[in-house]
Protein backbone atom coordinates (compact mmCIF):
# COMPACT_ATOMS: atom_id res chain seq x y z
CA UNK A 1 0.00 0.00 0.00
CA UNK A 2 1.70 3.29 -1.05
CA UNK A 3 2.29 5.88 1.62
CA UNK A 4 -0.27 8.71 1.38
CA UNK A 5 0.21 11.51 3.86
CA UNK A 6 3.20 13.84 3.77
CA UNK A 7 3.92 16.94 5.76
CA UNK A 8 4.98 20.08 3.91
CA UNK A 9 8.71 19.41 4.26
CA UNK A 10 8.39 15.82 3.01
CA UNK A 11 6.26 17.03 0.11
CA UNK A 12 8.87 19.64 -0.77
CA UNK A 13 11.64 17.03 -0.66
CA UNK A 14 9.58 14.65 -2.80
CA UNK A 15 9.05 17.48 -5.31
CA UNK A 16 12.79 18.07 -5.52
CA UNK A 17 13.43 14.35 -5.97
CA UNK A 18 10.92 14.24 -8.83
CA UNK A 19 12.58 17.22 -10.49
CA UNK A 20 15.98 15.54 -10.26
CA UNK A 21 14.71 12.24 -11.66
CA UNK A 22 12.72 13.77 -14.53
CA UNK A 23 15.52 16.13 -15.54
CA UNK A 24 17.90 13.18 -15.58
CA UNK A 25 15.71 10.56 -17.28
CA UNK A 26 13.22 12.67 -19.24
CA UNK A 27 9.41 12.85 -19.02
CA UNK A 28 7.78 10.16 -16.88
CA UNK A 29 4.25 8.96 -16.27
CA UNK A 30 2.66 9.83 -12.92
CA UNK A 31 2.05 6.10 -12.51
CA UNK A 32 5.77 5.33 -12.95
CA UNK A 33 6.71 7.99 -10.39
CA UNK A 34 4.13 6.62 -7.99
CA UNK A 35 5.70 3.17 -8.21
CA UNK A 36 9.23 4.56 -8.07
CA UNK A 37 8.75 6.66 -4.92
CA UNK A 38 6.07 4.54 -3.25
CA UNK A 39 3.49 7.31 -3.00
CA UNK A 40 -0.03 7.48 -4.46
CA UNK A 41 -0.52 9.11 -7.88
CA UNK A 42 -2.50 11.86 -6.14
CA UNK A 43 0.48 12.63 -3.90
CA UNK A 44 2.83 12.69 -6.90
CA UNK A 45 0.60 15.20 -8.71
CA UNK A 46 0.40 17.30 -5.55
CA UNK A 47 4.21 17.29 -5.25
CA UNK A 48 4.66 18.22 -8.92
CA UNK A 49 2.25 21.12 -8.54
CA UNK A 50 4.28 22.26 -5.52
CA UNK A 51 7.08 23.09 -7.94
CA UNK A 52 4.90 25.62 -9.72
CA UNK A 53 2.61 26.75 -6.94
CA UNK A 54 4.74 26.78 -3.83
CA UNK A 55 4.42 30.09 -2.11
CA UNK A 56 8.07 29.95 -1.11
CA UNK A 57 9.42 29.14 -4.53
CA UNK A 58 6.89 31.43 -6.19
CA UNK A 59 8.54 34.40 -4.62
CA UNK A 60 11.58 33.73 -6.75
CA UNK A 61 12.20 33.04 -10.41
CA UNK A 62 11.91 29.29 -10.34
CA UNK A 63 14.22 27.31 -12.60
CA UNK A 64 11.72 24.55 -13.25
CA UNK A 65 8.44 25.03 -15.07
CA UNK A 66 5.79 22.34 -14.96
CA UNK A 67 4.00 21.42 -18.18
CA UNK A 68 0.52 21.46 -16.65
CA UNK A 69 -1.25 20.29 -19.80
CA UNK A 70 0.88 17.15 -19.89
CA UNK A 71 0.34 16.70 -16.16
CA UNK A 72 -3.42 16.64 -16.72
CA UNK A 73 -2.78 13.76 -19.13
CA UNK A 74 -0.77 11.86 -16.53
CA UNK A 75 2.75 12.78 -17.66
CA UNK A 76 5.36 14.78 -15.77
CA UNK A 77 7.82 17.00 -17.59
CA UNK A 78 9.73 20.13 -16.68
CA UNK A 79 11.61 22.74 -18.57
CA UNK A 80 14.57 24.44 -17.01
CA UNK A 81 14.34 28.21 -16.73
CA UNK A 82 17.23 30.30 -17.96
CA UNK A 83 16.72 33.37 -15.80
CA UNK A 84 19.07 33.96 -12.92
CA UNK A 85 17.85 33.70 -9.37
CA UNK A 86 17.97 37.11 -7.77
CA UNK A 87 17.66 35.72 -4.25
CA UNK A 88 18.43 32.37 -2.68
CA UNK A 89 15.57 29.85 -2.57
CA UNK A 90 14.00 28.91 0.75
CA UNK A 91 15.55 25.70 2.05
CA UNK A 92 14.36 23.18 4.57
CA UNK A 93 16.22 22.75 7.84
CA UNK A 94 17.73 19.50 6.62
CA UNK A 95 18.87 21.02 3.33
CA UNK A 96 20.40 23.98 5.15
CA UNK A 97 22.21 21.66 7.54
CA UNK A 98 23.58 19.58 4.67
CA UNK A 99 24.81 22.68 2.88
CA UNK A 100 26.34 24.04 6.07
CA UNK A 101 28.19 20.76 6.69
CA UNK A 102 29.55 20.71 3.12
CA UNK A 103 30.64 24.33 3.29
CA UNK A 104 32.24 23.71 6.66
CA UNK A 105 34.28 20.88 5.14
CA UNK A 106 35.41 23.25 2.37
CA UNK A 107 36.35 25.90 4.90
CA UNK A 108 38.56 23.37 6.68
CA UNK A 109 40.64 22.78 3.54
CA UNK A 110 43.80 24.91 3.60
CA UNK A 111 43.18 26.35 0.12
CA UNK A 112 39.74 27.62 1.15
CA UNK A 113 40.55 28.82 4.66
CA UNK A 114 40.92 32.45 3.52
CA UNK A 115 38.28 32.38 0.78
CA UNK A 116 36.10 35.46 1.30
CA UNK A 117 33.24 34.22 -0.93
CA UNK A 118 33.00 31.03 1.10
CA UNK A 119 33.05 32.99 4.34
CA UNK A 120 30.24 35.18 2.99
CA UNK A 121 28.07 32.18 2.05
CA UNK A 122 28.71 30.58 5.42
CA UNK A 123 27.69 33.84 7.06
CA UNK A 124 24.42 33.92 5.08
CA UNK A 125 23.63 30.34 5.99
CA UNK A 126 24.27 31.04 9.66
CA UNK A 127 27.49 29.06 10.20
CA UNK A 128 30.01 30.34 12.71
CA UNK A 129 33.20 31.95 11.47
CA UNK A 130 35.42 29.08 12.64
CA UNK A 131 35.14 25.67 10.93
CA UNK A 132 33.89 22.86 13.14
CA UNK A 133 35.71 20.42 10.85
CA UNK A 134 39.38 19.80 11.50
CA UNK A 135 41.17 17.92 8.73
CA UNK A 136 44.52 17.83 10.46
CA UNK A 137 47.68 17.75 8.38
CA UNK A 138 48.56 14.15 7.62
CA UNK A 139 50.97 12.82 5.03
CA UNK A 140 48.30 12.94 2.32
CA UNK A 141 47.77 16.64 2.97
CA UNK A 142 51.50 17.23 2.52
CA UNK A 143 51.41 15.49 -0.86
CA UNK A 144 48.25 17.30 -1.86
CA UNK A 145 49.70 20.79 -1.77
CA UNK A 146 52.30 20.39 -4.59
CA UNK A 147 49.79 18.36 -6.58
CA UNK A 148 47.13 21.05 -6.35
CA UNK A 149 49.66 23.63 -7.46
CA UNK A 150 50.78 21.44 -10.40
CA UNK A 151 47.16 20.84 -11.49
CA UNK A 152 46.30 24.54 -11.38
CA UNK A 153 49.49 25.52 -13.24
CA UNK A 154 49.18 22.60 -15.73
CA UNK A 155 52.67 21.32 -14.88
CA UNK A 156 53.90 17.77 -15.31
CA UNK A 157 55.08 15.88 -12.25
CA UNK A 158 57.45 12.98 -11.72
CA UNK A 159 56.22 10.64 -8.99
CA UNK A 160 57.85 7.66 -7.32
CA UNK A 161 54.97 5.21 -7.10
CA UNK A 162 54.67 1.85 -5.34
CA UNK A 163 51.92 -0.38 -6.68
CA UNK A 164 49.90 -2.84 -4.61
CA UNK A 165 52.50 -5.55 -5.22
CA UNK A 166 55.24 -3.37 -3.75
CA UNK A 167 56.83 -2.65 -7.14
CA UNK A 168 58.35 0.81 -7.29
CA UNK A 169 58.46 2.85 -10.48
CA UNK A 170 59.09 6.41 -11.54
CA UNK A 171 56.17 7.91 -13.43
CA UNK A 172 55.92 11.12 -15.44
CA UNK A 173 52.30 12.21 -15.04
CA UNK A 174 50.09 15.02 -16.29
CA UNK A 175 48.12 15.62 -13.07
CA UNK A 176 44.48 16.40 -13.84
CA UNK A 177 42.29 15.91 -10.78
CA UNK A 178 42.30 14.69 -7.18
CA UNK A 179 39.41 12.55 -5.97
CA UNK A 180 38.61 11.55 -2.40
CA UNK A 181 36.91 8.14 -2.43
CA UNK A 182 36.10 6.28 0.74
CA UNK A 183 39.03 7.07 3.03
CA UNK A 184 41.61 7.69 0.30
CA UNK A 185 42.81 10.35 -2.08
CA UNK A 186 43.47 9.38 -5.69
CA UNK A 187 45.38 11.36 -8.29
CA UNK A 188 43.79 11.09 -11.71
CA UNK A 189 46.30 11.82 -14.45
CA UNK A 190 47.76 10.98 -17.83
CA UNK A 191 50.57 8.48 -17.28
CA UNK A 192 53.40 8.93 -19.82
CA UNK A 193 54.70 5.41 -19.12
CA UNK A 194 51.39 3.62 -19.69
CA UNK A 195 50.13 6.17 -22.24
CA UNK A 196 46.69 6.21 -20.67
CA UNK A 197 44.63 7.87 -17.98
CA UNK A 198 45.41 6.23 -14.61
CA UNK A 199 44.41 6.58 -10.97
CA UNK A 200 47.18 6.71 -8.37
CA UNK A 201 46.49 6.18 -4.67
CA UNK A 202 48.11 9.11 -2.93
CA UNK A 203 49.41 7.06 -0.02
CA UNK A 204 51.38 4.98 -2.53
CA UNK A 205 53.16 8.02 -3.98
CA UNK A 206 56.36 8.24 -1.99
CA UNK A 207 57.90 11.26 -3.69
CA UNK A 208 56.65 14.05 -5.96
CA UNK A 209 58.70 16.39 -8.10
CA UNK A 210 56.84 19.19 -9.88
CA UNK A 211 58.64 19.90 -13.14
CA UNK A 212 58.60 23.14 -15.14
CA UNK A 213 57.22 21.32 -18.21
CA UNK A 214 53.65 21.89 -19.26
CA UNK A 215 51.28 18.93 -19.39
CA UNK A 216 51.02 17.22 -22.77
CA UNK A 217 48.28 17.58 -25.36
CA UNK A 218 47.13 14.06 -24.49
CA UNK A 219 46.69 15.11 -20.87
CA UNK A 220 44.83 18.26 -21.88
CA UNK A 221 42.40 16.38 -24.06
CA UNK A 222 41.93 13.36 -21.77
CA UNK A 223 38.39 12.81 -20.58
CA UNK A 224 38.26 11.66 -16.95
CA UNK A 225 35.66 8.95 -16.34
CA UNK A 226 33.50 9.32 -13.22
CA UNK A 227 34.74 6.02 -11.79
CA UNK A 228 38.21 6.13 -10.29
CA UNK A 229 38.76 2.55 -11.36
CA UNK A 230 39.66 2.13 -15.02
CA UNK A 231 38.93 -0.94 -17.11
CA UNK A 232 41.10 -3.80 -15.90
CA UNK A 233 43.08 -5.84 -18.40
CA UNK A 234 42.16 -9.26 -17.01
CA UNK A 235 39.35 -8.61 -14.61
CA UNK A 236 37.58 -11.24 -12.58
CA UNK A 237 34.11 -10.90 -11.10
CA UNK A 238 34.02 -11.92 -7.46
CA UNK A 239 30.97 -12.18 -5.23
CA UNK A 240 31.45 -11.07 -1.64
CA UNK A 241 29.44 -10.33 1.46
CA UNK A 242 30.51 -7.68 3.98
CA UNK A 243 29.23 -6.78 7.43
CA UNK A 244 27.92 -3.23 7.91
CA UNK A 245 31.24 -2.11 9.42
CA UNK A 246 33.23 -3.56 6.51
CA UNK A 247 30.94 -2.51 3.67
CA UNK A 248 33.41 0.21 2.68
CA UNK A 249 35.28 -2.56 0.82
CA UNK A 250 32.89 -1.95 -2.08
CA UNK A 251 34.44 1.53 -2.47
CA UNK A 252 37.74 -0.05 -3.45
CA UNK A 253 36.54 -1.85 -6.56
CA UNK A 254 34.12 -1.37 -9.43
CA UNK A 255 31.04 -2.98 -7.86
CA UNK A 256 27.54 -3.93 -8.93
CA UNK A 257 24.46 -5.97 -7.94
CA UNK A 258 24.73 -4.67 -4.37
CA UNK A 259 22.03 -5.91 -2.05
CA UNK A 260 21.61 -4.94 1.59
CA UNK A 261 20.53 -7.86 3.75
CA UNK A 262 18.18 -7.64 6.73
CA UNK A 263 21.19 -8.32 8.99
CA UNK A 264 22.81 -5.08 7.80
CA UNK A 265 25.45 -6.83 5.74
CA UNK A 266 25.84 -6.12 2.04
CA UNK A 267 26.26 -8.72 -0.68
CA UNK A 268 27.45 -7.82 -4.16
CA UNK A 269 29.92 -8.35 -6.96
CA UNK A 270 33.25 -6.64 -7.46
CA UNK A 271 35.73 -6.69 -10.32
CA UNK A 272 39.33 -7.36 -9.39
CA UNK A 273 42.50 -7.14 -11.44
CA UNK A 274 44.49 -9.75 -9.54
CA UNK A 275 43.73 -12.16 -6.74
CA UNK A 276 46.72 -11.17 -4.62
CA UNK A 277 45.25 -7.70 -4.28
CA UNK A 278 41.92 -9.23 -3.32
CA UNK A 279 43.64 -11.12 -0.48
CA UNK A 280 44.94 -7.87 0.96
CA UNK A 281 41.62 -6.06 0.75
CA UNK A 282 39.57 -8.90 2.23
CA UNK A 283 42.02 -9.92 4.97
CA UNK A 284 42.15 -6.47 6.51
CA UNK A 285 38.58 -6.95 7.77
CA UNK A 286 39.46 -10.04 9.80
CA UNK A 287 36.59 -12.22 8.59
CA UNK A 288 33.99 -9.43 8.32
CA UNK A 289 34.23 -9.79 4.54
CA UNK A 290 33.71 -13.22 3.00
CA UNK A 291 34.35 -14.19 -0.60
CA UNK A 292 31.43 -16.30 -1.81
CA UNK A 293 32.62 -17.17 -5.31
CA UNK A 294 34.53 -18.19 -7.35
CA UNK A 295 36.48 -20.83 -5.45
CA UNK A 296 39.82 -19.57 -6.83
CA UNK A 297 39.19 -16.21 -5.16
CA UNK A 298 38.29 -17.88 -1.84
CA UNK A 299 41.51 -19.88 -1.98
CA UNK A 300 43.58 -16.81 -2.83
CA UNK A 301 42.25 -14.98 0.23
CA UNK A 302 42.81 -17.97 2.45
CA UNK A 303 46.40 -18.35 1.17
CA UNK A 304 47.13 -14.68 1.76
CA UNK A 305 45.90 -14.90 5.36
CA UNK A 306 47.76 -18.18 6.00
CA UNK A 307 51.01 -16.68 4.74
CA UNK A 308 50.50 -13.61 6.92
CA UNK A 309 49.95 -15.86 9.95
CA UNK A 310 53.45 -17.32 9.64
CA UNK A 311 54.75 -14.19 11.34
CA UNK A 312 52.60 -14.99 14.37
CA UNK A 313 53.37 -18.67 14.75
CA UNK A 314 50.44 -19.61 12.55
CA UNK A 315 49.79 -22.79 10.57
CA UNK A 316 52.28 -21.73 7.89
CA UNK A 317 55.09 -22.58 10.34
CA UNK A 318 54.11 -26.25 10.47
CA UNK A 319 55.96 -28.83 8.46
Amino acid at each position, binding site marked *: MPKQELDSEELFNLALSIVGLVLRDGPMQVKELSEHFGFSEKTIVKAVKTIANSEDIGRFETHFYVDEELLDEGEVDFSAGRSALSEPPVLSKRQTTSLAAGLDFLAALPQFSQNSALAQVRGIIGSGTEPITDLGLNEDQQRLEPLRSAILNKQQIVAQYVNQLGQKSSRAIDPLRIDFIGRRHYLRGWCHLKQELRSFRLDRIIDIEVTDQEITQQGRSASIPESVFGALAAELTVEITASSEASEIFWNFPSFDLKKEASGSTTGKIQVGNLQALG*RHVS*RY*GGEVVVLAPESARQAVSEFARLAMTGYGGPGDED
Partner: protein
Amino acid sequence: VSPLKLRFIEGQWVLLAKQGTQIKNFLLRRIISKVTPIDNASKPVSDEEVALAEAELADFVSNNKAVLEVEPDTEAWWHFGGPEGSQVEIHFMDEALLAEDLMEFGSEVRVLSPESLATRIRSGLERVVQVHA
Protein backbone atom coordinates in the same frame (compact mmCIF):
# COMPACT_ATOMS: atom_id res chain seq x y z
CA VAL B 1 25.53 13.61 22.77
CA SER B 2 26.14 17.25 21.95
CA PRO B 3 28.37 17.29 18.84
CA LEU B 4 31.20 19.80 18.98
CA LYS B 5 33.69 19.15 16.23
CA LEU B 6 34.49 16.76 13.40
CA ARG B 7 38.12 15.82 13.00
CA PHE B 8 39.87 13.82 10.30
CA ILE B 9 42.72 12.00 11.97
CA GLU B 10 44.92 9.46 10.17
CA GLY B 11 42.24 8.66 7.63
CA GLN B 12 39.45 8.41 10.21
CA TRP B 13 36.64 10.82 10.97
CA VAL B 14 36.29 11.44 14.68
CA LEU B 15 33.38 13.25 16.32
CA LEU B 16 34.21 15.25 19.40
CA ALA B 17 31.06 15.41 21.50
CA LYS B 18 29.86 16.02 25.03
CA GLN B 19 28.13 13.08 26.66
CA GLY B 20 26.80 13.89 30.12
CA THR B 21 29.58 15.83 31.79
CA GLN B 22 32.40 14.35 29.70
CA ILE B 23 33.82 15.31 26.32
CA LYS B 24 34.56 12.17 24.33
CA ASN B 25 35.81 11.15 20.90
CA PHE B 26 33.62 8.88 18.76
CA LEU B 27 34.86 7.20 15.59
CA LEU B 28 32.31 7.92 12.88
CA ARG B 29 32.65 4.48 11.35
CA ARG B 30 31.52 2.98 14.65
CA ILE B 31 28.29 4.98 14.60
CA ILE B 32 26.21 2.41 12.76
CA SER B 33 22.67 3.66 13.42
CA LYS B 34 20.85 6.51 11.78
CA VAL B 35 21.71 9.78 13.53
CA THR B 36 18.63 11.62 14.80
CA PRO B 37 18.85 15.29 15.75
CA ILE B 38 16.75 16.07 18.82
CA ASP B 39 15.30 19.37 19.91
CA ASN B 40 17.23 19.70 23.17
CA ALA B 41 19.68 22.59 23.01
CA SER B 42 23.26 21.48 23.58
CA LYS B 43 24.99 22.82 26.67
CA PRO B 44 27.66 25.42 25.90
CA VAL B 45 31.23 24.13 25.97
CA SER B 46 34.14 26.52 26.34
CA ASP B 47 37.06 26.63 23.91
CA GLU B 48 39.31 25.63 26.81
CA GLU B 49 37.32 22.45 27.44
CA VAL B 50 37.48 21.52 23.74
CA ALA B 51 41.23 22.23 23.63
CA LEU B 52 41.74 20.06 26.73
CA ALA B 53 39.80 17.16 25.18
CA GLU B 54 41.85 17.44 21.99
CA ALA B 55 45.08 17.50 23.96
CA GLU B 56 43.97 14.39 25.87
CA LEU B 57 43.41 12.57 22.57
CA ALA B 58 46.85 13.67 21.35
CA ASP B 59 48.39 12.38 24.62
CA PHE B 60 46.51 9.13 24.27
CA VAL B 61 47.85 8.65 20.72
CA SER B 62 51.42 9.51 21.69
CA ASN B 63 51.31 6.88 24.45
CA ASN B 64 49.98 4.18 22.11
CA LYS B 65 53.14 2.82 20.55
CA ALA B 66 53.65 -0.20 18.32
CA VAL B 67 56.92 -1.71 17.11
CA LEU B 68 56.79 -3.44 13.73
CA GLU B 69 59.15 -5.48 11.62
CA VAL B 70 58.70 -4.75 7.91
CA GLU B 71 60.08 -6.65 4.95
CA PRO B 72 62.39 -4.38 2.92
CA ASP B 73 61.36 -3.27 -0.59
CA THR B 74 57.73 -4.22 -0.11
CA GLU B 75 54.73 -1.90 -0.17
CA ALA B 76 54.68 -1.95 3.63
CA TRP B 77 58.35 -0.88 3.76
CA TRP B 78 57.67 2.05 1.44
CA HIS B 79 54.49 2.86 3.35
CA PHE B 80 56.48 3.27 6.56
CA GLY B 81 59.03 5.50 4.87
CA GLY B 82 61.65 2.95 3.79
CA PRO B 83 63.39 2.69 7.19
CA GLU B 84 67.12 2.03 7.52
CA GLY B 85 66.65 -1.22 9.38
CA SER B 86 63.63 -3.44 9.26
CA GLN B 87 62.01 -2.10 12.44
CA VAL B 88 59.66 0.84 12.73
CA GLU B 89 57.93 2.45 15.67
CA ILE B 90 54.52 4.03 15.16
CA HIS B 91 51.85 5.71 17.25
CA PHE B 92 48.19 4.91 16.86
CA MET B 93 44.74 6.06 17.93
CA ASP B 94 42.81 2.80 17.84
CA GLU B 95 44.29 -0.68 18.07
CA ALA B 96 41.48 -2.35 16.12
CA LEU B 97 41.84 0.06 13.21
CA LEU B 98 45.62 -0.27 13.19
CA ALA B 99 45.20 -4.05 13.12
CA GLU B 100 43.05 -3.67 9.98
CA ASP B 101 45.66 -1.52 8.30
CA LEU B 102 48.44 -3.96 9.18
CA MET B 103 46.50 -7.07 8.12
CA GLU B 104 46.29 -5.53 4.66
CA PHE B 105 50.08 -5.79 4.41
CA GLY B 106 49.92 -9.51 5.10
CA SER B 107 53.30 -11.16 5.61
CA GLU B 108 55.15 -7.92 4.83
CA VAL B 109 54.63 -6.76 8.43
CA ARG B 110 54.99 -8.48 11.79
CA VAL B 111 54.03 -6.85 15.07
CA LEU B 112 56.74 -7.09 17.71
CA SER B 113 54.78 -5.14 20.32
CA PRO B 114 52.33 -4.68 21.92
CA GLU B 115 51.30 -8.26 22.39
CA SER B 116 47.61 -7.31 22.35
CA LEU B 117 47.97 -5.99 18.80
CA ALA B 118 49.81 -9.10 17.64
CA THR B 119 47.09 -11.28 19.20
CA ARG B 120 44.36 -9.23 17.59
CA ILE B 121 45.97 -9.60 14.15
CA ARG B 122 46.50 -13.31 14.58
CA SER B 123 42.85 -13.77 15.59
CA GLY B 124 41.69 -11.73 12.61
CA LEU B 125 43.77 -13.73 10.17
CA GLU B 126 42.59 -16.99 11.73
CA ARG B 127 39.01 -15.88 11.19
CA VAL B 128 39.77 -15.06 7.54
CA VAL B 129 41.14 -18.57 7.04
CA GLN B 130 38.19 -20.07 8.91
CA VAL B 131 35.46 -18.35 6.87
CA HIS B 132 37.19 -19.30 3.62
CA ALA B 133 37.80 -22.95 4.52
